[in-house]
Structure formats: structure tokens, C-alpha cells
């Protein structure tokens, strides 16, 4: 097991490295000048020079990159170009709301998607299976911002059951927080739950058709034992991989949903920072997102290795 883990960890290092390079380069390639954005149109050449000097923009790109990465691994995130706020402060304000939304939506998607997939997969062509097909077809197709707007219209504007915007911290008032979270969570979780349900169903129908399941039935085990002890155990392992990949959908979806429901959070921060050419904020947020995604997938691979010894030998 240890060589497997070491090998997998070693494989992620170049990905993370390339991720930081890409995050750094993406904004440098923009033809705009952050100094001009900060100083405004009336700035003199000296003003611009001073600002660029202060931000370290006169150094070559490799120098800027090495300095940024060096600071980053030492835990120094630096200061936003445009607002002057420290990036770590920006994070401490904006990560909790995004985390609430992301985790709640992810948990909700799993809670809906996997049981639906199991019910449909165990009995193909049953009523559950038809329900599953209908659900996945609709849920996969509707973009999350459309779902969001429709939910806002029906449940916030017309029925007034839920607030239409804003966010309440879960730690200060859990009930009110969930009340604000409900609509954004549904809009974000719907397509993700559909993907999970569809994939779970496929792996289950594959396993249920295999010989060892027939053997279990033939030796007289009850249907529930066959499904839970024999079929589910084997079929849910591949689902781990898809669950980890869906974290990427959550990270993207959060950007859209925060805009639709005007919630504060990392998504809003990064959209605004891109528009203001705030290099440091954008590249740091991108790196954080990439690190989260890569780490989750690494963990999924390792868990997979524990659950299914066959993948370790490769």
C-alpha cells in the first residue's frame, strides 16, 4: 500500500506545479495594466511607474513567479492590488460562506443521487428506475442559473417561503442560515445529483448481473443480504472516483450560484478580481481551487486503493 500512495502523491506534484504556472500566466497574458486600473485614467507616467514598482511588476515574469510561489508556500498570501486588503483576510471573510454552500450542496447531491441510483439500478425497469430516468434527464439538462432563477421566482418572489438573497452564518444562527441556503443548495446540487445517480445506477446494474450475485442468490440468501452485502459493496467503489470529480462541478457551480443569489463568497471575489486585473487575488484563488480539486481526487484514488486492492498493482 505504501508504494502505491507514494506513487500517487508523486504524480500530483507536477500537476500542482503546472497549476501554479498556469494560474500565474493566465493573467499576465491580459493586455491590460493593473497599475492603470489602480491609478485611474488621469495618472501620470510617474504615478504608474511608482505603482508598478511597488507591486513588483518591473521584475521579469520568472522573478515574479518565484517570489509569489515562495511567499505562498511560506503562508504569506500578500495583498490585493486594488483593495489593499491582505489576501488572507479576504479569504477568512469569503471562504466560510462558499464552504457552507459547497459542502451543503455536495452533501445534498450525494444524499439524493446515490440512493436514487441504487433504487433504480437494483430493479431495472421498475417504477423507481423510471423515476430515476426522468429525474436525471431533467436535472442534467437545466443549467443551474436557470434553476436558480425559477426557484427565486416561485419560492422567493411569489410564495415568499424563502429569502431571495444574502447569507447568514451557520455558526451564528443555524436555522436562519439553512433557510438562506436552501434555494442555492438545490440549484447547485440538482445537476450533480443527476450525474451521481446515473453513474451509480450503471455500476449497480453491472454488478447485479455478475456471477457472484447469482451464486449468492442461488445459495438461498435473502434478497436484501444479496444486495447490501454482496452487490452494493462492489458497485459503490467506482462511484468514489465520480464523487471526487464532481467536486470540480461544485467549485465551478459555486461561482454561478453566488452570482444568482447574490451571496458573498469566493466566487464573487474571483469574478470581480478578474475584471479588475487583480493578479494576486485571482492567481491565489485559482491555486486554492486547484489544490482542493487535486487533493480530493488524490484522496479518492487512495481510498480506492484501500477498497479495491487490484488497482494498487499497476
Amino acid at each position, binding site marked *: 500500500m505504501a508504494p502505491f500512495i507514494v506513487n500517487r502523491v508523486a504524480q500530483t506534484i507536477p*500537476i500542482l506545479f503546472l497549476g501554479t504556472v498556469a494560474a500565474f500566466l493566465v493573467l499576465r497574458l491580459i493586455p491590460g495594466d493593473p497599475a492603470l486600473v489602480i491609478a485611474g485614467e488621469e495618472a501620470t507616467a510617474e504615478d504608474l511607474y511608482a505603482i508598478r514598482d511597488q507591486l513588483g511588476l518591473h521584475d521579469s515574469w520568472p522573478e515574479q513567479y518565484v517570489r509569489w510561489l515562495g511567499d505562498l508556500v511560506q503562508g504569506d498570501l500578500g495583498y490585493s492590488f486594488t483593495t489593499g486588503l491582505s489576501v488572507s483576510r479576504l479569504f477568512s471573510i469569503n471562504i466560510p460562506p462558499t464552504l457552507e454552500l459547497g459542502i451543503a450542496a455536495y452533501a445534498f447531491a450525494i444524499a439524493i443521487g446515490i440512493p436514487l441510483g441504487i433504487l433504480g439500478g437494483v430493479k*431495472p425497469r421498475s417504477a423507481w428506475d423510471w423515476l430515476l430516468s426522468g429525474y436525471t*434527464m431533467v436535472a442534467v439538462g437545466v443549467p443551474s442559473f*436557470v434553476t436558480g432563477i425559477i426557484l427565486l421566482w416561485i419560492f422567493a418572489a411569489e410564495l415568499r417561503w424563502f429569502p431571495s438573497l444574502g447569507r447568514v452564518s451557520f455558526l451564528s444562527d443555524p436555522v436562519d442560515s439553512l433557510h438562506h441556503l436552501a434555494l442555492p443548495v438545490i440549484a447547485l446540487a440538482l445537476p450533480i445529483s443527476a450525474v451521481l445517480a446515473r453513474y451509480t445506477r450503471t455500476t449497480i446494474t453491472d454488478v447485479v448481473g455478475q456471477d457472484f450475485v447469482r451464486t449468492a442468490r442461488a445459495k438461498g440468501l435473502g434478497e436484501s443480504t444479496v444486495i447490501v452485502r454482496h452487490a452494493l459493496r462492489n458497485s459503490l467503489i467506482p462511484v468514489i472516483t465520480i464523487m471526487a470529480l464532481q467536486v470540480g462541478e461544485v467549485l465551478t457551480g459555486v*461561482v454561478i450560484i453566488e452570482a444568482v443569489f447574490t451571496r458573498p463568497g469566493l466566487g464573487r471575489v474571483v469574478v470581480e478580481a478578474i475584471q479588475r486585473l487583480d493578479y494576486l487575488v485571482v492567481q491565489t484563488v485559482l491555486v486554492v481551487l486547484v489544490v482542493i480539486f487535486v487533493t480530493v481526487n488524490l484522496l479518492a484514488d487512495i481510498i480506492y486503493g484501500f477498497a479495491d486492492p487490484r488497482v494498487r498493482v499497476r
Partner: protein
Amino acid sequence: MSATAASQGGLTPDTGRPRLADSMWADTMRRLLRNPQGAIAVGGLLIIAVAAVAAPVIAWHDPIAQDASARLLSPSWDHPFGTDELRRDLFSRNVHGLKTALALSFLSVLTGAVLGTMTGFTVGYVRGWADAVVMRLVDALLAFPGLLIAFAILTILGQGLENIGIAIAVFAIPGFVRLSRAQMLGERNKDYVLAAQVLGARPVRIIFRHIVLNALPPLLTQVALAIASGVLIVAALGYFGLGEQAPTPSLGGLVNDSRPYLQRAWWYPVFPGAILAFLLLCLNLLADAINEAISPYARRTS
């Protein structure tokens, strides 16, 4: 022997000789259309494509002229999808938005597919350090949230249709590289490749003449899925105001514009939302159906 081969299809009468169109492609196409899901998907996409191509003809009002008799009119015969806050015909705006979204995602995904597939086939055949470098790059690209890549590219290159196209193509490439490389790895050690090598064929000829046709079908599923995510990206960019600039309509933009009028004009967000949902549904059904048509023994997945 030939009789059984011909009767497998079931559609054409058994004439006792092999059908002329017994190629893998014709076979796949036939299976695709015989599958109800596939038939619905192909039919739906045909309707959408015709509506998009014929947009200037079937939308009898100008999409940007402010010429309706009133603001926010509910749907009527003259304005089937109602009008917006600036007295513009929403049917025309929807159809024109659909045309842009469809053309844009189709063309850019095709471009990305060609580039990605050629790269994937090449590194999968050559292996070695080129393979390692390309695959690490692909892994890194796949780790980025696609929408943020699109945002960044649009900010880098400026707004405009061709730049949205570039963003979608770039987003589509890594998936195709990964899939086509995997296909190539599965094919490259088969006997027919060895035969071609023994006969002295050069790598370019082996890849693009011998292997490609066998490795291509599964990539079609990916094309349908990539067009679906392309449509989603165009729509999301439109929603954020990064797509087609004001007065030109976009489906995502229409949904965003409708926000202040949700309670007064249900038709304003519902029609573009429904069009997007229908288009994405058809593309997903098509991907499923292609998948089944390629591997008829695979279980139905939905």
C-alpha cells in the same frame, strides 16, 4: 453465413447477400436511430438546428428593434414568447440567441475535438516523454474549473464571439486528448497495427489511415457531451454579461435580464430556460444513444 450477417440488422429484408452498407459507420447509425432515445435526440436536434439556421426567416420580428405595441406583453399570436421591457419581440430574441449558442459551441467543440484528438492519437502512439509531458499538462488543465478558464480567456482576449469560441475550444481539448490517447493505447498493440508496421508503413499513415477509424466511434459520445458543456458555458457567460454584448440577444443574457420582472413576466425567463434545457436534454440523450449504438451489449444506462 452471409444470410445471418444480413438478417442481424432486422430493418432491411433478408436478401441473402450482405448489405452494401455493412460498414461500422452505417451499422452504428442504424442502431442509433432504432433506439427510441436516439431517435428523439436526433429529431429534437434537427428541429433545433432548423430553427437556428432559419432564424432570420421564422422570426418575423427584428430581435433588436423596439417596435412592439407595449412592454412586457404576455405571449400572443404575434409575439409567441411575449415582449421584453424595451418592447422587443422575445421569440425573435430567443431564436437568435439559440442560433449563436448552437453555432458557436458546435464549431468550437469541433475545432477542439480535432486538435485534441490529433494530439491524443499522436502521443498515445509515440509514447515516451512527449506522452508524459502532454498528459501532465492535460491533468493540470482538467484541474481548473472550466468556467473560470473561460472567464480568464475572455478577460485576456476581450469580449466577442470568436473569443468565446476559443474559450470553449480550449476547454474541450483536454477531454479529447485523454480519451483519444486511451483509445490509441487500446488499439496500438493489435495485430492489424503490427501488420501495417511490418509492411513498412510510417507512423503517420498507421495512425491516421489504420487506427483512427477504429478508435473514433467512442469519441463521438464525447463530442455530444462536449457540445453540451459548450452550450452551458456560452449560456453562463451570457448570464454574466461576458457573452454577446447588449442589444444582441443571448439565451443566458435573456435569463439574467428577466430578473427584475420575474413576478410580472413569467415568459421572460421560462422560454430561454426551456430552450436551453431541451437542447441539453437532446445532446445528453444523443450521447447515451451513441454509446449504446457503439457497444450494443452494454446495458442501457438511463
